[in-house]
């Protein structure tokens, strides 16, 4: 294991966050605060409680998930796409590193940034509403698993994209709608039966549900199913990335 390389990639990526602090940290915090104002104050005045939890508190796990997913995908995809775009990828491809070390560096850094961001949003949410965490360890595990899974997905996106537009399209047209429709701001029990069934095909439902359970012990689907689906998604991404490196897809011509 080339640990020096893992450290070099990780530090390089984290330093990029330092240079783009406003974009990486401040901007999502401002967005989240706006969500609280719009959803919490405007809609929350009409929906008082869901499953015994005030609406403002209910949306906190969903909001954290929303940022966690979009930031994990965008950080990891940008991290690997930019060297491909600028041509500096030659150095990574010619270095004595395996796909595992590359992932530990890039995905590790992207997931770290997302987890820091999720923690900041949780702290920010505490300023607006009362937030209880019933199962802190499970909460942390869902946070880490989701950040890692979607950073892996972002890495795949960054390898697949052959232009800035494609890099933006997936988070904008797939991740964000799936998150909004995945029960971030409502319980899927509130939907008509047909749409409840349709919603179960949305993988984000399982992430939000499991994460919300760790806060309030309320879940749309079983926690075991949520956990299992997250692990399946993580493993699927890992296998796909392993194939990318074995075949050289979009990396080695």
């Amino acid at each position, binding site marked *: 294991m080339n640990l020096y390389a893992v450290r070099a990639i990780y530090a390089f990526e984290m330093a990029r966050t330092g240079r783009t602090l406003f974009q990486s940290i401040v901007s999502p915090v401002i967005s989240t605060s706006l969500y609280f104002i719009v959803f919490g104050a405007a809609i929350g005045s009409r929906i008082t409680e869901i499953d015994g939890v005030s609406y403002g508190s209910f949306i906190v796990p969903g909001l954290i998930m929303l940022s966690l997913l979009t930031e994990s995908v965008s950080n990891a995809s940008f991290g690997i796409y930019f060297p491909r775009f*600028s*041509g*500096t990828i*030659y*150095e990574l491809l010619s*270095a*004595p590193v395996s796909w595992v070390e590359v992932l530990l560096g890039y995905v590790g850094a992207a997931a770290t940034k997302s987890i820091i961001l999720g923690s900041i949003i949780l702290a920010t949410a505490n300023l607006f509403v009362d937030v209880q965490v019933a199962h802190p360890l499970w909460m942390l595990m869902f946070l880490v698993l989701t950040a890692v899974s979607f950073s892996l997905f972002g890495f795949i996106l960054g390898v697949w994209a052959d232009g800035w537009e494609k890099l933006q399209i997936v988070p904008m047209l797939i991740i964000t709608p799936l998150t909004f429709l995945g029960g971030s701001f409502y319980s899927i029990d509130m939907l008509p039966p047909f749409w409840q069934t349709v919603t179960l095909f949305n993988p984000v439902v399982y992430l939000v549900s499991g994460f919300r359970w760790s806060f309030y012990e309320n879940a749309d689907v079983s926690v075991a199913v949520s956990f299992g689906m997250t692990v399946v998604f993580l493993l699927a991404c890992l296998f796909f990335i392993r194939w990318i490196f074995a075949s050289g897809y979009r990396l080695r011509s």
Partner: protein
Amino acid sequence: MHPAISVSHLEKTYAGGFRALKDVSLSIEHGEIFALLGPNGAGKTTLINIVCGIVNASGGEVRVDGHDIRRDFRKTRSLIGLVPQELATDTFESVLATVRFSRGLFGKPRDDAHVEKVLRSLTLWEKRDARIMTLSGGMKRRVLIAKALAHEPRILFLDEPTAGVDVELRKDMWQIVRALKETGVTVILTTHYIEEAEQMADRVGVINHGQIVLVQEKRRLMRELGKRELRVHLQEPLDAVPDSLAQHALQLAADGQELVYTYDTQAERTGITSLLADLGTAGVRFNDLTTRESSLEEIFVDLVRKKAV
């Protein structure tokens, strides 16, 4: 002892069907400076990229210091440093950070003394905190060289390292290359400035249309394939070469003031004695004679043209 690089029957066909390398075999010894020459699109960069692990080969085998580049990629890649043709840099990073990054990426612990030595040798030390985006093209090229040297490679690939750089950097770079050679580093370079290869290289390989045309020790190549030119400076200009001198295949130059005779240095008879005798018989008077040897560039162009015909 294994060769520094051993390439056997290497093939590369790109996805579009373009066959960039055709059965390339080549051996490069430890500590030599090897110049790989060829026109644009000949396959030089593809060959380098395969050895470095950037491009997958379609067939054949490459070994670096006896190790297979696929099975023992950690070993082979840690031995190699690459200065790519393109000016691909981390534009937002500082010079020092990007060179330290390269050292770590290639599995070496932080060594500020070595990084400082490399940066000073490339006159980059004063610019160590500057962002790369603020540097000139020549300075960026120096950064790429510094990155390639950061992990103390035993084999250094320089792919068109002096393209678009000033004379000062070229001199600095060749000084570094000579110093590396003294420490036993193997240097493989491609360049369009063939006079550089002529000055620096121990051996020369010529590649064209994906095939190795020849690999030869530079002095021997110039001796064997080089031609000498005898220029006869005439007292009176000529309108045409006299018929009596036709057998010597002379050419008129300098508005008829010079006769140019080309001869093979390796031939048993150069034909100079009979030429001079025939000139006297034909009444062609001259006041000076000069000779000149072919440059590597002329040999290279000649080789590439011959293969193209």
